[in-house]
């Protein structure tokens, strides 16, 4: 069993009373070691940290866009909204699509795309978004999008947000060291007031940014 040195960032999936749930995927040494935990084992957790998704603005229509752990990251937000909208879930194949029942139980319409077509439509999540947008009758309420998933997905959502004039909040996925703003690992380039850019720490000043803040063209 490999030992990991640093903590790992996770989103709060559910929090009810004294119980806090996270939903995670074993992708590397840290998360795989976590699968060895047994009921009753004690863990150390620091949180909540950083700036989460803001509440839906008055009069806007919410859409959620999730890939990977995004479904877990968006659940509490989805639950907080009194008038649900559409949730777009994308993944490689069926096992990547999680929490559909939970979102539907909250009244959300869930549209699924998988790259291999094993669940929902075959394609990527933005195909499904584009189809919805072009079918949408004009003149509806302005859209506010919330996205969490791979950076390529966030970037694609950001492009649509600018084109279609949505407000869009993205939760960026950066490697993290300390989680509290000290190590300067998790920085990304955001626009400063003028033409330039500055580093912001996604652990404290993010991980959620309005998509127009981010210098997508400077992303490696």
């Amino acid at each position, binding site marked *: 069993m490999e030992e990991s*040195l640093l903590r790992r960032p996770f989103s709060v999936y559910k929090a009810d009373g004294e119980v806090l749930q996270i939903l995670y995927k074993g992708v590397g040494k840290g998360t795989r070691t976590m699968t060895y935990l047994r009921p009753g084992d004690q863990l*150390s957790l620091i949180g909540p940290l950083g700036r989460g998704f803001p509440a839906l603005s008055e009069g806007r229509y919410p859409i959620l866009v999730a890939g990977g752990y995004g479904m877990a990251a968006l659940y509490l937000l989805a639950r907080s909204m009194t008038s649900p909208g559409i949730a777009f879930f994308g993944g490689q194949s069926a096992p990547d699509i999680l929490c559909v029942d939970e979102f539907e139980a909250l009244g959300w319409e869930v549209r699924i795309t998988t790259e291999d077509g094993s669940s929902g439509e075959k394609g990527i999540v933005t195909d499904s978004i584009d189809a919805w947008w072009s079918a949408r009758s004009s003149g509806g309420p302005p859209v506010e999008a919330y996205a969490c998933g791979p950076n390529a997905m966030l970037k694609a959502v950001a492009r649509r947000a600018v084109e279609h004039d949505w407000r869009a909040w993205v939760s960026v996925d*950066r490697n993290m060291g*300390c989680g509290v703003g000290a*190590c*300067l690992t998790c*920085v990304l380039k955001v626009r400063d007031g003028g033409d330039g850019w500055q580093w912001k720490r996604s652990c404290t000043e993010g991980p959620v940014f309005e998509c127009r803040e981010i210098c997508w063209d400077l992303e490696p």
Partner: protein
Amino acid sequence: MPDLSVHIGRLKMKTPVMVASGTFGYGPEYADLVDLNKLGAIVVKGIARHPTRGNETPRTVEVASGLINAIGLPNPGFDGFVEQYMPFLRQYDVPVIVNIWGKTIEEYAEVARRFDEVDGVHALEINVSCPNIKEGSGLFGTDLDMFRRVVEAVRKVTDLTLIPKLAPNVSDIRAYARAAEESGADAISLINSVPAMAVDVETRKPKLANVTGGLTGPGIHSLAVKLVWEAAGAVRIPVIGIGGIVTAEDALEFLIVGASAVAVGTASFTQPTTALDVTDGIAAYLERHGYGAVHELVGTMSSE
């Protein structure tokens, strides 16, 4: 309760356990999680005369028992630091050690001279060993003559307690320790991170934007203990042991081989209270072994 206080030059610390430069921000970052007044000292992240942005990302990568970082010394510059952070730090009853760097000897001297007049700054740690800046700083720590010149230049312009921080990647650490002492340093600290790199074999790209970085964390502890032991044996000025401290035992090893104080680095990322936990562990150890004061333990390694 054993006496934990330590004096280094004109710097008086309540405990021998500080937090290492670059691993604790400028103080506010950890203020909600750690009682700053209980730290031996706060060594802030490296400050230069002018603001710099640091390296591109990725800036860190985790490896077996360690972290490789190539942050690249982003810093708000002297003015930015003094304005943004000193008012906060002055609220606390904890010594502030400013870690300084420059790209030329003149820059080192210039930033040191300015700090000499800043209220609330107790000591300067000279970072000559950061392996991440290509423009010469790397050399200050591995070229004995350059090293000596930096320390002398800084010594000339400040009365603050002066602590050159040694690079580990030299053949004879004792020569650097002695050069620091001869150049008027009040203490030395070591080690800084150890040059390292990692490659993603699938993309064949370096895992760090800067290609190389510095290894820190538990994996370097045994290297650091060896270097601190040698350095402490070579000089009379106090030595601050740094490198891979996670537990009180790790810190005690440094004290036993001759360090007067220690600094906790990477471990604060994993457990923000590490420095305080280590302090408690040292106190408990001293009590258990009948020491009245921490300085009695320093350099007591038994040769038999």
